[in-house]
């Protein structure tokens, strides 16, 4: 079997938001002209660093590879696109050596919704606010440990770096084509407890839900009625991802525009963050008892209860909106 990835034809209990499923960040220097058909050895002196920001890569077509690119001083790269090549390293996390690279794939910049940097059409060191990742769709034909070689022209200067990541044999989180888990969850009307369990922003003596329209509908009821669902699983206050942004607010805004096409629901991750207690309906979706889980996630569930799309960590809001526009209005 070929051990390459090809560009897709289409596209502890502790919950931790990690930037990689199991990654070891390597870096390689752009000095000289390395043989770019094999994954180079890491160069600890390199300026550019890459970190995989995907949560749940598995063998199969159209996997969503997210890459955070940084300078060694943590300055984020944004804008434009970069070139990515990948190679299967083996089943062992320590695997390495000279391995052939895939054909190049373009990874385009995806800003964090609500925290968009002021960047143009070419990659640049972000001087100011904002963050994002580089997104590519790849087919991984083999689970195991993979390496990625990233080539970027940043502010007109060439940079290369490498990183490693794990591709699972099957997804840990419900994925496209699978039936959405049918879980009972509280709504604003049925919840009996602190509002912060519905939305971590609802705190204090004067607690109220910032987006009550995301807590009106049971997912199961919507699906039983043949209504598609947009489900955001997030913790606005306790978000731990480096790419945190106001994703819940973005979904709330989309809900105001597209509530005639889908039901919009927010699951708060934490029942009690201090006690490390997840909301049980969240564990059904995104938590694996053996390895934990990550957030945020957004799922688009078809009217027949099948997951039509999902976005881990950084939402592609344009992609979601396009899919919503394609749904029939009620």
């Amino acid at each position, binding site marked *: 079997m070929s051990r390459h990835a090809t560009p897709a034809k289409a596209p502890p209990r502790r919950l931790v938001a990690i930037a990689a499923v199991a990654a070891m960040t390597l870096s390689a220097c752009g000095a000289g002209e390395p043989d770019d058909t094999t994954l180079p050895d890491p160069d600890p002196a390199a300026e550019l660093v890459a970190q995989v920001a995907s949560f749940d890569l598995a063998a199969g077509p159209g996997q969503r590879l997210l890459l955070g690119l940084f300078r060694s001083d943590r300055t984020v790269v944004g804008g434009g696109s970069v070139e990515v090549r990948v190679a299967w390293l083996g089943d062992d996390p320590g695997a390495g050596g000279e391995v052939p690279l895939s054909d190049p794939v373009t990874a385009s910049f995806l800003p964090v919704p609500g925290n968009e940097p002021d960047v143009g059409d070419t990659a640049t060191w972000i001087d100011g606010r904002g963050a994002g990742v580089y997104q590519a769709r790849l087919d991984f034909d083999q689970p195991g440990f993979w390496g990625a070689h990233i080539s970027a022209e940043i502010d007109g200067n060439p940079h290369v770096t490498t990183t490693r990541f794990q591709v699972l044999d099957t997804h840990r989180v419900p994925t496209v084509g699978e039936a959405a888990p049918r879980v009972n969850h509280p709504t604003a009307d049925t919840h009996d407890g602190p509002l912060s369990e519905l939305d971590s*922003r609802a705190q204090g003596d004067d607690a109220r839900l910032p987006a009550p329209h995301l807590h009106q509908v049971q997912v199961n009821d919507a699906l039983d009625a043949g209504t598609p669902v947009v489900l955001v699983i997030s913790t606005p206050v*306790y978000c731990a991802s480096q790419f945190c942004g106001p994703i819940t607010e973005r979904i709330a805004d989309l809900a105001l525009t597209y509530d005639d096409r889908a039901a919009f629901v927010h699951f708060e991750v934490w029942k009690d963050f*201090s006690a490390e207690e997840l909301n049980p309906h969240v564990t059904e979706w995104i938590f694996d008892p053996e390895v934990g889980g990550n957030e945020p996630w957004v799922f688009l569930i078809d009217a027949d209860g099948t997951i039509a799309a999902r976005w881990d960590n950084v939402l592609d809001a344009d992609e979601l909106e396009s899919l919503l526009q394609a749904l029939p209005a009620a």
Partner: protein
Amino acid sequence: MTTMCAAIDQAASGDAETAADTVEVDAHTPLHDLADDLAAEDRAATARLLEAKYDLESSIRGGTMAPAPLVHQRLLALTEHIREALTALDRPAPSC
């Protein structure tokens, strides 16, 4: 802490925008790192830190900047929680 102290001074002088930029550009990632480290030691303190961080961010993001006095107040509150976190992790926690 240096970054936070600078932001506090900027907000105190009435420049909420610059204070916000200072925090967003230079403190955002280190704060996440701090929260990650603290979560392994003290969840309750981590909760307080993240709640204070969110309070500040909600006043400086989304296109509507809160008035400088409010930003200043929230910066002070967040900085105290940062110092609490650093102390819990046995790291230097200087005052401004």
